[in-house]
C-alpha cells in the first residue's frame, strides 16, 4: 500500500509572485480517508497535483513510498495515485464509454483480455453497463462523473484523489457518488477528497487537512477540526449538519452520547419507548 510523505513543501507557479503552498508537512498512510478542505484559492488542488506528481515542489519534497516525485514520471505515479479532475469533460475523448475506460489500462500495458475483464467489473460497480457503447459526451453530469471515477479506478490505484467530486450535482447524483466512495473506503482503499461540501466530507472521511492561503491550519480528526470555530472561520467553511445538530441539542457526540440521545428522543417522541 502506498505511503506519501510531504516535507516542508513550498510551491510557486512559474508566473506567480506568491507561493501557492507554504511549508506543508503531511504523512498519508494506507487505508486513510482524508478530506482536503479550505476556501477558494487555498491551494487544495495545487496540493493534490503535488501529491500525484503533476506539479513538482519548488522547495521541500513529496515522497511516494520513499521515492521523491521529482525522479518519477507522472505515469509511474499515476499507476499508484489516481487523480480524478473536477471537470470530466477535460478527460473524455473516446467515442464510447468502453474505450474511455480502457484508455488508462492500455497506457499501463494491460492486455486486451485483462482490460475487458476490468472494464466489466467497473461498469457493474458504477452502474454504467447500459451506457457501454454510448458517447461519453452524451451522458448526464452525474453519469459523466461516475465514468470519470471509473476510468481511473479501473487500474486499481492504491490511493484515489478526487477533486470536487460533487460540484454541480443534484442530490441523487451526490448520494450516488457518496455511496460509491463509501464502499471504496470500506474496502480499505485510501481516498483523498478535495471538496467544499463539508457534509459530504463528513460522511466519507475520518481525517481532514484544512488549508488557508496555502498553509495547513488544521490536520487531524475531521470531526474535531470541523467543530473548531476558529478553523471553520479561517477556511470559510461551515460545520457539518450533524455537528450543528449535536451542538443545538446539547449533546457531546452522537456516537458517544447514546443515552442522552435516547432520553431526548423519548421526551420528544414518547411513542419511541414502545
Amino acid at each position, binding site marked *: 500500500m502506498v505511503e506519501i510523505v510531504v516535507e516542508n513543501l513550498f510551491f510557486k507557479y512559474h508566473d506567480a509572485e506568491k507561493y501557492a503552498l507554504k511549508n506543508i508537512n503531511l504523512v498519508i498512510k494506507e487505508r486513510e480517508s482524508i478530506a482536503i478542505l479550505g476556501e477558494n484559492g487555498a491551494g487544495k488542488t495545487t496540493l493534490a497535483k503535488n501529491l500525484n506528481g503533476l506539479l513538482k515542489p519548488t522547495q521541500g519534497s513529496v515522497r511516494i513510498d520513499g521515492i521523491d516525485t521529482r525522479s518519477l514520471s507522472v505515469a509511474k505515479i*499515476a499507476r499508484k495515485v*489516481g487523480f480524478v*479532475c473536477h471537470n470530466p*469533460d477535460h478527460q473524455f*475523448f473516446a467515442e464510447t464509454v468502453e474505450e474511455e475506460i480502457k484508455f*488508462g489500462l492500455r*497506457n499501463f500495458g494491460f492486455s486486451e483480455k485483462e482490460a475487458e475483464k476490468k472494464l466489466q467489473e467497473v461498469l457493474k460497480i458504477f452502474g454504467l453497463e447500459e451506457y457501454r457503447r454510448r458517447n461519453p459526451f452524451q451522458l448526464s453530469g452525474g453519469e459523466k462523473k461516475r465514468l470519470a471515477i471509473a476510468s481511473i479506478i479501473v487500474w486499481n490505484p492504491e490511493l484515489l484523489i478526487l477533486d470536487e467530486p460533487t460540484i454541480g450535482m443534484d442530490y441523487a447524483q451526490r448520494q450516488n457518488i457518496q455511496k460509491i466512495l463509501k464502499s471504496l473506503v470500506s474496502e480499505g482503499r485510501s481516498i483523498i477528497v478535495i471538496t467544499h461540501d463539508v457534509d459530504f466530507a463528513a460522511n466519507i472521511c475520518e481525517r481532514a487537512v484544512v488549508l488557508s492561503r496555502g498553509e495547513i491550519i488544521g490536520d487531524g480528526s475531521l470531526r474535531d477540526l470541523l467543530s473548531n470555530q476558529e478553523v471553520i472561520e479561517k477556511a470559510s467553511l461551515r460545520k457539518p449538519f450533524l455537528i450543528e445538530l449535536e451542538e443545538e441539542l446539547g449533546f457531546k457526540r452522537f456516537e458517544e452520547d447514546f443515552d442522552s440521545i435516547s432520553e431526548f428522543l423519548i421526551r420528544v417522541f414518547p411513542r419511541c419507548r414502545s
Partner: protein
Amino acid sequence: MSFLKAFKYRKKDSIIHRLDPRSKFLFSIVLMSFSIVFLDIRVLLTILAFQIILLGLSKTLREWVYSLKGLTFFFVIIFVTQLLFGGNIFTGFVFSIRLIVLSSSMSWFFLSSSPEDIGRAMSSARLPIELVFSFIMSIRFIPVIYDEFQSIYDAQRSRGLELEKGGFRTKIKNLMPILIPLLIGTIRRTYEIADAMEVRAFGASSKRTSYKDLKFRRGDYFLCLISILLVFTMVYLKLLLAIE
C-alpha cells in the same frame, strides 16, 4: 503552448500601459516590418534590444522571457531545416532571432494593451462591431484555451498518457486525447457565449456608444513620431545602404 502567454494582457501600472493602443499598434507594425524586411543580424539585434527596453518599461520582461521557452520547438525546426537545406548554424541563429523579433513585436503590444482598449481602437477605426467583438473574444480566449489545454494535459497524464514516448506517429496519435476535448470544449463554449450574448441583446442597437473614449496624449504623438522615423530609417537602410 507557453508561448501563448506572451499574448495575455498583464494589468500593470507602467508608462507603456498608459499609451493609446493605436500608437502602440503602429509602432509594433513598424518593428515587425523590420524583422520581415531585414535578415541582417546587426539590424535584428538592434530591434531586439529596442524591444527588450520596451518590455522592461512595460514591466512584462519576465512574461516575455517565459514565452520564449514555448518557441523552443520552432527554434529546433528552424535549425534543422537550415542544416538540411544548405544553411548553417549561423543562418539558423539569424532566423531564430528573426522569429523572436517578429513574435516580440506583437507580444509587447498584447502584453500591455487590454482587450477592451484594443476593441475601442478598432471601433474608432469604424470596423463593424461583430468583427471587433470576435477579435476581442479571440484574444481573450488565448489564455483560457491555454489553461484548458493544461488541465486536459494534466488529466490525461494522470491516466498514464506519455507524450514524450514513441516516434513521430505515436506522438501525433497521443495528441488526440488532448486535442479532442480541447476542440469540443472550445466549440461548446462558443455556443454558450453566443447564447449569453443574445440574451443580453447583443446587436439589438445599431448605434453603439462607448463608456470610455480613447485619447491621444503627448506620449502617443511621440511614439508615432518614432515610428515614422523608423520607417525612414528602414527605407534608408534598405534602399540606400542596400542592407539585406
